[in-house]
């Protein structure tokens, strides 16, 4: 695995409180990684430390194989959407993005072109010359997100990129980010696990300044090893169901939720074949409401962070 960002034993203290407590993480290059954690878990501190805004107390950061962030080394190759950071209110979007592009090393023409294209992409082409002061919170947020993608940096950190966007703009932003998959390394911090599940191919659970778990989303949600049947009630004959499944897997019924979970291995039996075997037997005993492949990220997160 080629690593874009490697963090080892990172510690950052605010007074006596350890916001990052020996956090270790390896973000693969060209991955879209989600950072999930409760409020105060250390996600924002982690991003700010990687960006060089905060000085860590100890630990190592290796950004794109060139050590910790250094503007002279990483300038133009790295960008971030920081949380709770206002854009300069007297500036105008086009001129501000052009200025940012210029600082990233783009020529005036390229910077202007990229800035205009970015404003079109975030649906703010008609407000290119309005003072930022006059834009709504959501519009400003789109500019904040858009500035990250100027000049195609290699690694982008997005702290709550969809917060404050209306549903239409959130969808547009989601597809904007999704288009960059496999082209840039993107790290997204969000409380919205559905967004993480849709956008990311890797996910890290962060709690109390540590990485609890880091894995590809597919492994985390076990799409290829779990089938969940939502039933109307308890099946009359569990033994029959187990016999139907045989050696191919293991069944687990939760009487509180009426969920029948089937653990299996995709290599030994595909999900479609398993369903063909199980569904008639289930229907002979009770009603079947839905079938879900794998667990949701939310379920996994709750399970791992109790």
């Amino acid at each position, binding site marked *: 695995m080629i690593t874009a960002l490697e963090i080892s034993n990172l510690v950052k203290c605010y007074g006596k409180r350890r916001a990052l407590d020996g956090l270790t993480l390896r973000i693969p290059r060209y991955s879209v990684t989600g950072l999930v954690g409760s409020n105060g878990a250390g996600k924002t501190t982690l991003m*700010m430390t990687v*960006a*060089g*805004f*905060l*000085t860590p107390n100890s630990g190592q950061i290796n950004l794109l194989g060139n050590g910790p*962030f250094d*503007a*002279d080394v*990483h*300038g*133009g190759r*790295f*960008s*971030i959407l*920081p949380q*709770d*950071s*206002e*854009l*300069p*209110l*007297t*500036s105008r979007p086009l001129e501000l993005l052009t*200025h*940012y592009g*210029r*600082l*990233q*090393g783009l020529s005036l023409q390229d910077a202007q072109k990229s800035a205009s294209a970015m404003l079109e992409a975030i649906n703010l082409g008609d407000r290119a010359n309005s003072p930022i002061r006059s834009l709504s919170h959501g519009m400003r947020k789109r500019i*904040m997100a858009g*500035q990250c993608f100027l000049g195609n940096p290699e690694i982008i950190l997005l702290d709550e990129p969809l917060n404050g966007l209306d549903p239409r703009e959130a969808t547009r932003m989601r597809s904007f980010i999704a288009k960059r998959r496999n082209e840039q390394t993107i790290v997204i911090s969000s409380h919205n696990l559905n967004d993480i599940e849709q956008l990311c191919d890797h996910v890290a659970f962060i709690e109390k300044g540590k990485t609890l778990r880091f894995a590809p989303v597919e492994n985390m949600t076990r799409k290829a090893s779990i089938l969940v049947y939502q039933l109307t009630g308890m099946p009359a004959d569990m033994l029959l169901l187990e016999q139907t499944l045989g050696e191919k897997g293991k069944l687990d019924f939760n009487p509180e939720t009426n969920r029948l979970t089937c653990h299996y291995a995709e290599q030994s039996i595909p999900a479609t074949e398993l369903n063909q075997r199980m569904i008639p037997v289930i229907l002979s005993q009770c009603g079947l409401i839905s079938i879900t492949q794998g667990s949701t990220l939310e379920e996994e997160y709750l399970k791992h962070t109790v």
Partner: protein
Amino acid sequence: MTPFIHVWRMTCYEWFDALRSRRALVALLLYMATSVGTMYWSISLLQKVEKELASILLLPASEHPGAIATTLWKSKPFQGIMRQVSKNNEVFNDIQGKNPVELIYAWLSFFYMPLLVVLIAANRIPEEMGSGAVRYIAFRTSRGAWVLGKFFGQVSLIALAVIISGLCAYAVARFRLGRYAPVEIVWNMAFWAARAWIYSIPFVGLIMGLSLFTKSASKSTIFGILALVGLAIITGVTTFFRAGTGWCVVLPYIAALFPSDYEMLLWRSSPQPLITGAIFLVTLGFTYLGVGYFFFKKRDL
């Protein structure tokens, strides 16, 4: 991209952005109005003094202020008075015979400069740190380039302020004095404007250096005003006790750390003291800024 290009880009943007900021514009207008007002008031005062002098010395009264002042420079008793006022023989020798208009302009430019610097420069850095706007820059360029860009932006804005105020002050002088404010003194006033601009550099360094310690624009302005009051007190103490003995012998060394110690060098005409003064003042400006930057370099944004 070299750090110099980053500094240049930051300077250009800072200049552009500062000009657009209402606060900077208000400060510029205030400075301009103050220059105009002070010039107008000074000419009126000069006219009054001349009338009184004319009646005491039994000279024919003139309609134009400045006409008698020019004659007065040649009188020995008047020279003695001016020598006492300037407290510096060399400065007196250099300024004697100069047109009162340019001397008034020089005085007002130097006098109001520190206040103008506080009004214009104190809030630029803390505003961006407080709002978080600095974070959009901090991963694109180094903190050093950002701070230097802001510094040069403010320094160039002050250059604009002295040029505009100089032109306005001359316009008032021309209106009030007619041929006693000849066009030729515009060049001399420009030279005084350049000196006042150099004099502003240590103050910009000091005010911006201090502003690197806070994220609050209002706190930074208060720090700036307190620093000016502190400087005035230190200057007063060092001037008063300079000739003393004992602990007073360290005072000249302490005074050397502050801009007021070099101000009079900028009032001289010969290049040697002028260049020396300019070098010391610019060095002081960068030193003050450097001290602030030393703290800022490692601080959390």
